[in-house]
């Protein structure tokens, strides 16, 4: 028995000479909810299809439950997929769709019936067993697709943007349902999405992918609070990205020169004098004042615009030539400022996140 349910070792998948997945290694623990997060074309769906067996790796190895899977067709793998388009068989009703996998395994009829009815109850679709897929709503189709996969008791459930076709409210509701289902059943979930909020809400760990490689893998708060690269900082949540040279160090901080301002940032071992430092500051950590503060630093700028977004309001402050910082503040606690006014922006230096790339 392997400690990992799914392992990818240096997997490469090329299509017409283009690497969709490039030297990817991934270890998924048993019972874990792992999300592959990234923009379209980052290789997340290809990775999922490699695990399901719809694609074979050009190079590298894939293990499921410690067994090497290279060359093994999808029907011989103990994993099931929830497809983005659901792919419910249109010529079968809900019951037959769910029973399909068990029938293919030649399970006894009575056992099939018991398990299908049990899973129908779990997804609360008992009343819909004889409906055809085209007589179901999007959310119901979604639940049938999940039931059809789960009824087979797979080692791993693969989900390819399963909530992409649902409206926002239903999506939020299904996120919670899925998460609870996963906790209840203890099955390993590998979930593909481009929605960072969805990933942060549901996952035990997130692998942020870009251009066929994993940029960072970690828990949601690690990904959000300690992004390893500018790509991660930018893709997950909103971010003010600053780039400058480290010009001075003291015992606590490194000082970065940005638009003529000395900005203290947390020190890191990799920093060199006059080396480039990338800094990410979340908009909700940025504060605005109308006069210089008693603070390690305050960057002077000009208020460019304010954008109302319900509970919060975004304020864009332009700094020097063509640079700007966005602050997100509670609408109820806004300072009465007008566009064109001279202001100062600052934040707690410890809240700035430093990155080498």
């Amino acid at each position: 028995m392997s400690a990992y349910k799914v392992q990818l070792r240096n997997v490469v998948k090329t299509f017409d000479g283009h690497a969709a997945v490039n030297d990817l290694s991934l270890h998924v623990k048993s019972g874990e909810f792992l999300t592959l997060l990234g923009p379209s074309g980052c290789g997340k769906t290809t990775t999922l299809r490699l695990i399901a067996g719809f694609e074979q790796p050009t190079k590298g190895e894939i293990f499921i439950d410690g067994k090497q899977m290279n060359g093994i067709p999808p029907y011989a793998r103990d994993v099931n997929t929830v497809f983005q388009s659901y792919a419910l068989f249109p010529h079968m009703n809900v019951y037959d769709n769910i029973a399909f996998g068990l029938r293919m395994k030649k399970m006894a009829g009575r056992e099939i019936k018991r398990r299908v009815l049990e899973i129908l109850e779990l997804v609360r679709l008992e009343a819909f067993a004889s409906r055809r897929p085209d007589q179901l709503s999007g959310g119901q189709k979604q639940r049938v697709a999940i039931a059809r996969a789960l009824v087979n008791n797979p080692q791993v459930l693969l989900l390819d943007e399963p909530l992409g076709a649902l409206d926002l409210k239903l999506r939020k509701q299904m996120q919670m349902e899925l998460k609870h289902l996963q906790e209840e059943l203890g099955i390993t979930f590998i979930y593909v999405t481009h929605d960072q909020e969805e990933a942060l809400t549901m996952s035990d760990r997130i692998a942020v992918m870009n251009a066929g490689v994993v940029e960072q893998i970690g828990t949601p708060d690690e990904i959000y609070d300690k992004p390893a690269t500018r790509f991660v900082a930018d893709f997950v949540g909103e971010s003010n990205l600053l780039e400058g040279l480290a010009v001075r160090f003291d015992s606590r901080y490194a000082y970065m020169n940005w638009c003529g301002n000395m900005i203290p940032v947390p020190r890191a071992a990799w920093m060199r004098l006059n080396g480039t430092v990338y800094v990410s500051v979340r908009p909700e950590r940025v504060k605005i004042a109308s006069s210089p503060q008693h603070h390690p630093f305050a960057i002077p700028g000009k208020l460019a615009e304010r954008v109302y977004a319900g509970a919060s309001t975004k304020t864009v402050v332009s700094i020097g030539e063509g640079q700007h910082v966005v602050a997100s503040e509670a609408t109820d606690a806004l300072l009465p400022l007008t566009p064109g006014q001279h202001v100062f922006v600052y934040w707690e230096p410890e809240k700035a996140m430093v990155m080498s790339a």
Partner: protein
Amino acid sequence: MKKFGPVWTISPVALWIAVFFSVPLGLVLFVSFMTRGLYGGIEYTFTLDNYVRFFDPLYGKILWESVLVAACTTSLCLLFGYPFAYIVARSPRKYRNLLLLLIVIPFWTNSLIRTYAWIVLLRTEGVLNTALMKLGLIAEPLPMLYNDGAVLVGLAYTLFPFMVLPLYASIEKLDPAYLEAAGDLGAKPWQTFMHVTLPLTAPGIVAGSLLVFVPTLGLFFIPDLMGGSKSMLIGNLIKNQFLSARDWPFGSAVSIVLMALTLLMIAVYAKTAGNDRDGVI
């Protein structure tokens, strides 16, 4: 005036159907109830004899054999057409039209001429027999022409595209995600084919079968030329009544019976296709 607009737009079609379809059909129906004249003309006396005569076991046998030949032709077309249509539908997009064109190109030549070409290939001193004898594979020419097998080959050849095109259309529309889903749920390739591919392409199979089966009943020149007038099918019967026997009323009656059978089959198809409204996505 405005409210007659839609009527005007369909009037050319209505006129066309009236002149070239309804009137001739009405004539055939009318003649089928008349009496044959002494010298092959039509005597305008009402009778049901033409229909009663069709119940003679002789004609029943002809109808049965025709249906049998049509069924065999359809099966033959399906047997070869399905794999062909499947390969075309699953080949890279840029080759699909080319492959379909290859099926259609021979049909730019008149089918009568192509039937004669088959005769040149299959007859005793034909291309195939000569080649096989020259190669020493056979000592005597094989009897490849003027039998039921030859008729089947000719019919299947002529009607093959009518099977392939509807099949292609329904296989091409089949979302590969269904096949992946079946495999994902543990179905081996043949199980996927039996439980997913076949049912989802059934409308194409039915449409293609109908398009082959129905014309086979009426094609008279292929059994004539390739069966060596040994086989009498219902199409030949009708042709003979009009041309050699000069019995137009009986020929008309047989035509009407054939048409009724055909309509019945189409009705059955429409019903199955109607029930299976989500069969083709």
